[in-house]
């Protein structure tokens, strides 16, 4: 229960920072998204199902706060969180570059997924795919913050796992 509360608090804080502060600082049309590296980090550290759950929660929160249709970001982050849990199992987990690389790849994958979802659901106007440059800028921004968020999530997990 405490894990749910801690992650809820973390996601709410990250989501608010995203819409209130980071949305004001665009670089090449891209906005740093701290929710995606959190989903990736949970996937890496706790496994695919946790990554999927946190990704879904993060995505839905993002949809709720951003004003778009509920589910677009939820679907994308669900898939990214799950995939990061699945693929990272085979990679050496202590590699310091892992969070950044996984987030970079996850962001690019998410941008492709966003375009597909937009086409399938007819929500292209709201969830239109960005240009390649913007997608890479987004990936670079997200992967820049990923090591710090990964360390934070790791710290949370360490404290939650510590015997009382």
């Amino acid at each position, binding site marked *: 229960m405490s894990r749910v509360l801690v992650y809820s608090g973390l996601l709410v804080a990250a989501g*608010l920072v995203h819409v209130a*502060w980071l949305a004001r600082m665009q670089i090449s049309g891209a906005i740093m998204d701290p929710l995606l590296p959190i989903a990736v980090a949970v996937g890496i550290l706790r496994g695919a199902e946790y990554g999927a759950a946190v990704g879904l929660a993060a995505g839905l929160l993002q949809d709720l706060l951003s004003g778009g249709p509920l589910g677009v970001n939820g679907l994308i982050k669900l898939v990214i969180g799950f995939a990061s849990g699945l693929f990272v199992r085979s990679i050496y987990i202590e590699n310091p570059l892992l969070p950044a690389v996984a987030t970079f790849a996850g962001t690019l994958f998410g941008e492709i997924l966003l375009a597909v979802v937009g086409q399938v659901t007819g929500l292209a106007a709201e969830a239109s795919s960005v240009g390649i440059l913007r997608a890479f800028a987004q990936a670079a921004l997200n992967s820049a913050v990923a090591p710090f968020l990964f360390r934070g999530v790791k710290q949370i997990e360490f404290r939650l796992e510590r015997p009382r």
Partner: protein
Amino acid sequence: MGELLLARRRIAIFLVLFLFVLVLLSSQTRTADRRQVGPVGTALLTALMPLQAGMFRVADAASGVWDTFAEIGRLRVENARLRTQVENLNREVAELREQASSAERLERLLEFRRQLSYQATAARVIGRDASRWFTTLVVDRGSRDGVRRNAPVVTPEGVVGRVIEVTPMASRVLLISDSRSAVGVLIQQSRDAGVVEGLGGGRLHLKYLSRAARINEGDLVVTSGLGGVFPRGLVVGRIANVIREEGELLQEAEVEPAAQLDRLEEMLILLPRQ
């Protein structure tokens, strides 16, 4: 076996969540606004909106502070640019004023030259005497321009002096205020004759004036034409102070030069008649 069960469980959880979000998404796309947050979403938004608004205000304040600093930086750069511009414009104004002043002087000189019944050439000062004892000028006209030794030098205001040295391209002018200078003069009104000598430092002294001569302060002193250097009738100056000493046969006077001898820039050199 346990690993397989875990994998199946993992896939099952993912599929359940995936189906949930697909249903949610498809329900959203069917609504007119393509957004239906429902009671849970509304409750969440009700709780989060004040926080979001507060954070937005904090960001606004921080952005305002940042904008102020950025504005200060921009203003500094603009200030430096404007200062440079003002300096350049001041320089330009000074140059234009100088040109206007020069044009005005030359215009007066030209007008004066038209009035003269002598041939004359305009000359510009290119050097001043560095010594305290002698007051001479160097001008940019010489023998190539027809200038000869002892040629009178005048301005529209009055007599300046005479040429004492001539080179092909420049000449030296001895000012009437030099102690070596002596000019035969007349008091314009009374027609009494005398000699104006230089005292140095821009002062002139009128000598050899008959005690019977009726002179007053302010009387105009003009060249007499005697002596063969200066033609008759050129203004030398005005009587500034009359000196009559007891028992002397002659009287003397201080004369204020008509030409501004310490500010000469352009002048006319009278040329000998052809």
